[in-house]
């Protein structure tokens, strides 16, 4: 991709006041995300993934450093960066259409009622919910609610899509279909996306790159793994793809052992500013790129 650093996280830190000083969730964190790329972040609970995402969304402020998006530093939430919340966060007193329209009017305040509705309906159709426009969130299943959340995020045509474990509360079947949809939409629109997940298979299916976070406190990006699987991979046949197990084992190894030991036994030449980029080959065990 031409734009290597569409999103550039530059040495950010987040500290919380604690009795007798402060705890540092992470500091001196660096990460770049190229335009049009789908990046997944995995790491153990409490390491600070949500914090990173909230900083990107502009919902949380950093204690140090800054984040540059498209050449401009972030100073708060923006319609350019849509968030799909883990808990869908639909406004329960509004219908499906109302929820999506709320986002559309926020994006285009001067748009006519008709146009707002047209855009909202299009977004709803995109996630396959046409026909349910007038249902209330309470009348929807968990998967349908999450689709509305996705439709709402997409309806404002954001430059960046931020997702915090969007499918973790769903059953495997629903999760699968939604993953398919998200991948389809992101591929077709060339959307820049950042997703947090605990599901290694989800990361392998969706991500172009997978960012591995070490355990907190003082978490850091251990490495960035490039996904070697072909772009036209299918979710159902994923585990038959060559290189799949090697990649999966690498990720799980990290989560099981290295994420905890990384901080104390940093590899030689490790530079927080430039976390190592791993390019696993399709047959070999993954190894560090030259």
């Amino acid at each position, binding site marked *: 991709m031409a734009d290597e650093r569409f999103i550039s996280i530059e040495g950010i830190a987040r500290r919380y006041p604690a009795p007798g000083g402060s705890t540092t969730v992470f500091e001196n964190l660096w990460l770049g995300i190229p335009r049009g790329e789908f990046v997944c972040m995995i790491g153990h609970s409490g390491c600070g993934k949500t914090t990173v995402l909230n900083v990107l969304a502009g*919902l949380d402020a950093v204690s140090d450093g800054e984040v540059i998006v498209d050449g401009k530093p972030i100073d708060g*939430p923006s319609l350019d*960066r*849509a*968030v799909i919340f883990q808990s869908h966060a639909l406004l*329960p007193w509004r219908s499906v259409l109302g929820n999506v329209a709320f986002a559309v009017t*926020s*994006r285009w305040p001067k748009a006519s009622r008709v146009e707002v509705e047209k855009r909202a309906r299009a977004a709803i159709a995109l996630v396959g919910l046409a026909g349910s426009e007038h249902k209330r969130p309470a009348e929807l299943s968990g998967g349908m609610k999450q689709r509305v959340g996705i439709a709402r995020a997409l309806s*404002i045509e954001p430059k960046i899509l931020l997702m915090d474990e969007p499918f973790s509360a769903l059953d495997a079947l629903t999760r699968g279909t939604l993953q398919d949809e998200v991948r389809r939409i992101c591929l077709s629109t060339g959307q820049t996306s950042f997703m947090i997940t605990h599901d290694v298979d989800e990361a392998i299916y969706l991500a172009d790159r997978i960012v591995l976070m070490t355990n907190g406190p003082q978490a850091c990006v251990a490495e960035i793994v490039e996904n070697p699987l072909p772009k036209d991979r299918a979710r159902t046949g994923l585990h038959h793809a060559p290189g799949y197990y090697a990649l999966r084992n690498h990720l799980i190894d990290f989560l099981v052992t290295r994420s905890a030991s990384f901080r104390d036994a940093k590899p030689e030449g490790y530079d927080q500013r430039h976390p190592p980029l791993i390019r696993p080959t399709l047959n070999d065990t993954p190894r560090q790129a030259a």
Partner: protein
Amino acid sequence: MASLASFRVSPALRAGLVSLAILTVLLLAWHLATSGSGPVQAMDPEYAKLMGKTATEGKSAMPGPLDVGRTLWGHLRDPFYVKGANDKGIGIQLAYSIARVAAGYLAAVLVAVPVGFLIGMSPLMGRALNPFIQVMKPVSPLAWMPLALYTIKDSQASSIFVIFICALWPMLINTAFGVASVRKEWLNVARTLEVRTLRRALTVILPAAAPTILTGMRISIGIAWLVIVAAEMLVGGTGIGYFVWNEWNNLSIANVISSILVIGLVGMALDQLLARAQRLVTFPE
């Protein structure tokens, strides 16, 4: 005894039948308890003419259900008569009371909701105003009355003020609480959509807090109705509270009981009105 259970009676109907049975038993007991003992003792007829029925016929000082029913029917049949400044029909008196409640209550809504919003949205204001609210809230309505009369120097305005001040706190506290406890994620949705403060207050916070606010309003209308009766008993002039007081002055217990029933019914109606409003703004999650 072909088994009662075999009757397919809906639960609502069954509850209604039990209510009716309880009512019948209560009315019967009431009737028996107040039916009197017959002429007490031989009395000089000349003297008896000067005495009331309680004294001459041993009639219970407490009216029976029939007396109350008759009295109530009398009021309901002609609710809007005016026989002078101090003698008006029960409908007119109710209208006075409801008008006062409406005035004081609406004023309280107009103050409580915006101020509650302010408190709810600003933790600083919340903490700063909390001591005042905590002190004012438990003050008995009637304790305000002398102060109001003294400062406002108008009994009509004073009773409205007392309604206002008593209806204020539950609404204020509930509004502040409702606003403060709007789910963080909904606020975050608004933030990520760059929704401006006023629109956020109206389209996110207000609907989110509405059920809590309405709960406060419902508590308040109950208090307002309680207070108006007491306030009118105190300052008199007009209103259902004055009506009760006037009949108490005449020791007409049948009238007092009928007014109690009417007050209860109106109170229930007001409560139901707000319950309905509450249902309108409540959202299932």
